[in-house]
């Protein structure tokens, strides 16, 4: 009997969960997060800039681009204002090449009640 009370009490307490209160949580808003950005292509130009292009993702409000100097390093958001969803290329002129190597990640975002919900970030990409 003692063990039954103990097990019931433990099961009862561990069955309690925290409420999902983030309005951007898909389980709260009922809106799915944007799909991952695909087909990301990166090329360098003669002007020592980098051009990134990608396939447009449907029903998104914009894109973010992140940059790092190593594959698994810290990725810095280089487009904090976001890139308009109608655009599918971006020229990064804040780089110093040759001599440095850069990796990029991309994500798409949507707006839910004026707040940004960012989708999954892509795998790191660089030029060949």
């Amino acid at each position: 009997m003692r063990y039954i009370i103990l097990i019931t009490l433990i099961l009862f307490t561990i069955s309690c969960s925290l409420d999902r209160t983030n309005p951007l949580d898909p389980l709260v808003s009922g809106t799915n997060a944007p799909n991952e950005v695909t087909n990301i292509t990166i090329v360098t130009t003669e002007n020592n800039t980098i051009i990134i292009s990608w396939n447009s993702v449907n029903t998104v409000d914009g894109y973010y681009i992140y940059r790092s100097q190593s594959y698994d390093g810290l990725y810095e958001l280089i487009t904090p204002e976001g890139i308009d969803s109608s655009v599918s290329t971006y020229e990064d002129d804040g780089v110093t090449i040759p001599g440095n190597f850069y990796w990029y990640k991309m994500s798409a975002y949507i707006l839910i009640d004026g707040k940004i919900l960012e989708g999954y970030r892509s795998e790191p990409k660089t030029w060949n």
Partner: protein
Amino acid sequence: MNKYLIVFILFLSTSLFSEKFNIEEFSNPAKYNWENMEDRCKARDDLDSRQKLLQIYKLNKQQIIRNMIKSAFAPGWGHYSSHDYTKGHAFIASEIVLFGTSYYFYNQAMDDYHNYEDSHYIGDIKQLYLDANSNYKYSQLFFSLGAVVWMYTIYDSISATQEYNQNLWNDLSKKLHSQRVLITPTSITVRF
């Protein structure tokens, strides 16, 4: 009128059939193995000492309910009162560990939960919620265990108090019987 008559008859019949109190048999010293006056005095001294023992016991014994309240207020306190220091240490230490761990996980859960609430990246939203919930459940689990141990502490203080009282009685009895010379304000008793 009949009622009073019946009551009167019943009263008479009870006195007729009741056993007569035999004062001589009651006061017969041989009944108590008292051969002489010395035996009587010994018996009286023994009774006195037992009464004193009982008084000392009553003064020093622990009340179960009081120790239960102490344990309910602070786990282990009831055991400390019953001089069961090992259990008292064990209970208070386990409560500190269990509630401390619960508090640690609760803090971790709340940190993750606040980050979840502020997050706008889907990866963080999903991961932080899972982390927060997992830590919250650990916190609840340790809290429940702490509560169970606390309840057990209250329950165990009953047996600890009973044991203390039993030991107290045994010690007092032992002291009384090992005392060869007993000095009281009215007499000196020497045991051989």
